[in-house]
């Protein structure tokens, strides 16, 4: 993985407030210079007879912030999970990070070696956090460094502590997930997803499981990441936030991209269904 070759977005770094001690968000984000990062072409996904993704094309450019929204069951989470190979497409091609995968694959599986190499470039933040309950916050973040990147324990813990500091949780290193609030857990999860310096970060409804008063602290971390130039795809119901942060907005329905466009999509939707959804939500 040639992550060190990539340079952080210089304008974004300048926009960040100076942080004298500890790592800043920008230090952790190494946005690659090549475009596009991920390309999905004509992807389908069926569970048995039910087709949840019915032919989607999507291109994610480096540094782009893509927002996917839509009603439940529209396939937005499935589409997101494909970019991490947590769902294996039934048809179509997925090209990213120098490899191109054409589906369907033999026995509907991506070979382990290829899949793990692919996933190393992608971080994922889940709705339910999915922190490891048997580890302290520090080791939740350190363990990918040790197990995936082969970093020695002492260095991994050092870097994990720095990553936790960047989400404002250094003091909470020694706490187990069950001893943290939902917002804190989700910030640990973000630190864990960032620590391997992924080229792409996926958010699957990161605030849907949170109490209202904790949504803000998570969104502010996501906002920092965005301004640091991280490439992100976000599935969310927080449309106010989505509108603010995203530079490409995708409305999905029935496994298809019903409408996509810039910020103006929210104020002036072209698709009748988009309009009705936005009316109901906003």
């Amino acid at each position, binding site marked *: 993985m040639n992550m060190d070759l990539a340079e952080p977005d210089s304008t974004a770094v300048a926009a960040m407030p100076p942080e004298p001690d500890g790592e800043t968000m920008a230090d952790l984000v190494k946005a690659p210079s090549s475009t596009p990062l991920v390309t999905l072409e004509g992807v389908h996904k069926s569970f048995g007879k039910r087709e949840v993704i019915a032919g989607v094309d999507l291109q994610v450019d480096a540094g782009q912030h893509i927002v996917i929204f839509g009603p439940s069951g529209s396939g937005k989470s499935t589409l997101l999970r494909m970019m991490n190979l947590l769902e294996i497409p039934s048809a179509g091609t997925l090209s990213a990070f120098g490899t191109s995968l054409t589906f369907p694959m033999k026995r509907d599986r991506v070979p382990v070696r290829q899949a*793990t190499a692919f996933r190393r470039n992608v971080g994922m933040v*889940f709705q339910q956090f*999915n922190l490891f309950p048997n580890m302290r916050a520090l080791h939740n973040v350190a363990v990918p460094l040790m197990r995936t990147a082969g970093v020695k324990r002492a260095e991994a813990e050092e870097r994990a502590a720095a990553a936790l500091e960047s989400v404002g949780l250094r003091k909470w290193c020694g706490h187990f997930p069950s*001893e943290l609030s939902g917002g804190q857990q989700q910030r640990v999860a973000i630190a864990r997803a960032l620590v391997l310096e992924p080229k792409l970060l996926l958010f699957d409804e990161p605030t849907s499981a949170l109490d209202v008063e904790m949504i803000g602290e998570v969104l502010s971390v996501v906002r920092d990441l965005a301004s640091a130039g991280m490439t992100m795809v976000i599935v969310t119901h927080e449309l106010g936030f989505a509108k603010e942060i995203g530079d490409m907005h995708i409305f999905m329905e029935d496994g298809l991209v019903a409408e996509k466009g810039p910020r103006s999509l929210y104020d002036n939707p072209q698709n009748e269904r988009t309009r009705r959804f936005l009316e109901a939500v906003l």
Partner: protein
Amino acid sequence: MSAVADVMASHTIYHWGLINTYRGQLLHGLLRALNVALASLVLSVVCGMLLAMWRMAPRRYSWPAALYINIFRGVPPLVSVIWVYFGLALAFNIQFSVFQASVIALVLLYSAFLAEIFRSALGAIPKGQREAGLSLGFRPRTIFFTVLLPQAAKISLPNVGSMLIGMVKDTSTFQVIGLMEVVYVSTNAEATTFQPFVLYTAAAAMYVIVAFVVDFVFRTLERSIGGRPVGMLPRLLTYRKERRVRAFAEA
């Protein structure tokens, strides 16, 4: 008092002092039983985990594991040990030692029980744990050993402890092949002293003490792993790690 009256008296009066007389043999019997049970536990845990994973495979591959589990959960230890010690010798001319036969007999039974314990423990772990591991680029082996196993261990430890107690007790039936465990020692002592009540009570007391010790050890383990350590001993056992991590929090 006549000699006959003396013998009669020895039948009705409990000579608790016999426990002291036979304490060496009884303790030897206990060690023998523990030896067999602990060796069986280690092997059964490994075999049980493998069986559990096989059992959790798609149905068209998993049926042999399911069949094995259902057969051997139903076989009594007495039958199992006779199969291994006498049956295999007769059928295939394989002669195990008494110790080996005892261990194999227990492993055959208890790997089936443990497989079900591990299956339910692994099944209790949320799907998101595996997905989190995958998303971090973990290989399947890493997911199993760093994510699933520690959590499954915490869930299954109390039941594994119960299984160990069961194993220690089941060794008592192995006197049929001549395993010199607690009950066999008691039976022998009874033959010369005519004091079954005293000696079998002593045997039972030893099993009960073992049960308490096993419970303590497994509860300490359970409280030391898989989350915030609870209680003085678990905290003491994890103290070094706690101190190391706290140093990062305070830096």
